[in-house]
């Protein structure tokens, strides 16, 4: 398994797409931090109001927290679990889908027929790469935070306690990305194509996050609220909010989040685990069951 992981790691790290995606992601992160910084410092002058019930000065303080330590870490994690999910979907679909389009899946399985190991090695390599991406994002975010801090007269350095929270936050952020990665891999195996994988993963993301299709259910309250609490998005929100709170942020001040209606963290972890296991089992089942070469 270690050798398979090393093979997958070599493929991923030598692939230009990996680093192009990371560069775009980091550029967008810098842009986001910079825009938050300017909003934070110009909010009162411009009268920026996010539309929540929180007073303007409270909102402004929240913007400020997002661009200085330790809240900056929360901001980076928020970026990772928001926009990062799209990049994770593209990475996952690219990693497995290309094996179909290039015919390399056949080359691999004609050597090592264990399809479950192949899938798990690929998944582990993808997750490891996501962790590396997160660490790089945190470093870049920190540098940007320091530079922005210098612009306003001083850097508010993170404490050791803040730094100690990072490993758990990284794990939490990874766990948030996991169902999207697995769902994408599932679609990729189903369609035996990169395109189907990307389309499936992004369609769900767009439906889930972008249009809030499923979020509308909660407005009906009662049973609908409970059903909504079983969706991926609502449970992911719980963990994302936890990561923000861990670094002193209060996203509910700037976005219409109803913390009271969110599932408990342990329940969120459990529900996401059920989704992950379902997607994983389906993907492996399909991969194992289907022929790899066509008729000739």
């Amino acid at each position, binding site marked *: 398994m270690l*050798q*398979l992981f*090393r*093979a997958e790691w*070599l*493929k991923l790290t*030598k*692939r*230009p797409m990996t680093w192009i995606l990371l560069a775009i992601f980091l550029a967008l992160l810098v842009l986001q931090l910079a825009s938050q910084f300017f909003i934070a410092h110009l909010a009162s002058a411009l009268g920026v109001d996010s539309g929540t019930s929180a007073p303007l000065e409270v909102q402004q303080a929240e913007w400020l927290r997002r661009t200085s330590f330790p809240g900056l870490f929360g901001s980076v994690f928020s970026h990772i679990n928001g926009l990062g999910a799209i990049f994770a979907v593209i990475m996952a679909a690219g990693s497995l889908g*290309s094996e179909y389009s*290039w*015919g*390399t899946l*056949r*080359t*691999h*399985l*004609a*050597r*090592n*027929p*264990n399809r479950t190991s192949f899938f798990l090695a690929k998944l582990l390599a993808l997750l490891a790469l996501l962790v590396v991406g997160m660490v790089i994002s945190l470093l870049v975010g920190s540098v940007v935070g320091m530079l922005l801090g210098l612009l306003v007269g001083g850097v508010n350095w993170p404490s050791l306690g803040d730094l100690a929270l990072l490993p758990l936050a990284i794990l939490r952020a990874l766990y948030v990305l996991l169902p999207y990665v697995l769902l994408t891999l599932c679609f990729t195996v189903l369609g035996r194509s990169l395109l189907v994988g990307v389309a499936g993963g992004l369609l769900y993301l767009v439906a889930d996050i972008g249009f809030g299709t499923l979020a509308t259910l909660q407005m009906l309250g009662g049973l609908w609220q409970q059903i909504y609490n079983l969706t991926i998005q609502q449970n992911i929100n719980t963990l994302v909010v936890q990561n923000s709170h861990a670094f002193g942020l209060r996203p509910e001040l700037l976005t219409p989040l109803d913390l009271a209606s969110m599932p408990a963290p342990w329940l969120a972890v459990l529900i996401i685990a059920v989704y992950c296991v379902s997607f994983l089992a389906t993907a492996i089942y399909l991969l194992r069951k289907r*022929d*790899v*070469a*066509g*008729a*000739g």
Partner: protein
Amino acid sequence: MDAVILTEGLTKRFGEREAVADLNLKVHAGEIFGFLGPNGAGKSTTIGMLLGLVRPTAGRAIVLGYDMQLQPAPALKSVGAMIEVPAFYPYLSARDNLRVLARVSGLPDARVDAVLKMVELHDRARDPFKSFSQGMRQRLGLAAALLHEPQLILLDEPTNGLDPAGQHEIRALIRTLAQSGHTIFLSSHMLSEVEQLCDRVAILKAGRVIAEGNVAELLRRGRGLLLRVAGDAAVALEVLRATPWIAAVEQQGDALLLDAPAERAAEISMLLAAKQIAVAELRTNETRLEDFFLEVTKS
């Protein structure tokens, strides 16, 4: 274990279409076995089943003593394959592509340089696969097949895209591999290549084996003898058609083509002599494999 590949009633259906039907093959250790057939005959599907990539609808494929449905892993440790177009990661160099495969097979990276040298790609080892010509891709495919020093090598069109010199080198390499005890299963459209290299062949058409055997024997089959007579050819034709052990006689120009065993040529001479017909020429008909292939695969 004599049979390196053994298929028993191997069948694959894709919906209503039968891609491979009741295939019974036996490939012996150390031989070069040619696998021929027109496009869509089921060759790739068969190779897919031999490698455990395609699940048979019925029957079984046994490779190196292992049932490929039940125990593909131990068999594949000793099988090298180049399937259809060599498939590699376009952005990786030749060396990195082989490093990936070495890791998949649990081999040390050191083996990579040895096979790159074997197929004369060591000078281009750092170049990305996407920059390779078709011939270089074929070489890399062959290098990948040889990476783990397999006992059985399945090759699908190994000289496709190579220039004559390249084809000659690869054929020489295949011969060397066979001489050193490897078993080669060679699927090829280049019939002259199969004729030059293979000990035995099987010809597949619409998923079924329509001819199988030793290459020399197959070429003797069918119109096995060519006869020219000095006298009346019509009388000779009548005499030969009346002979029960001559399966078929066909007139082709001034010659008669006889489907008869070559070792009974003397009897044919005597038969005709008894009817006062002088034999001007009687010899084994030199059929090329290509002619034989076209004849048996024509609809």
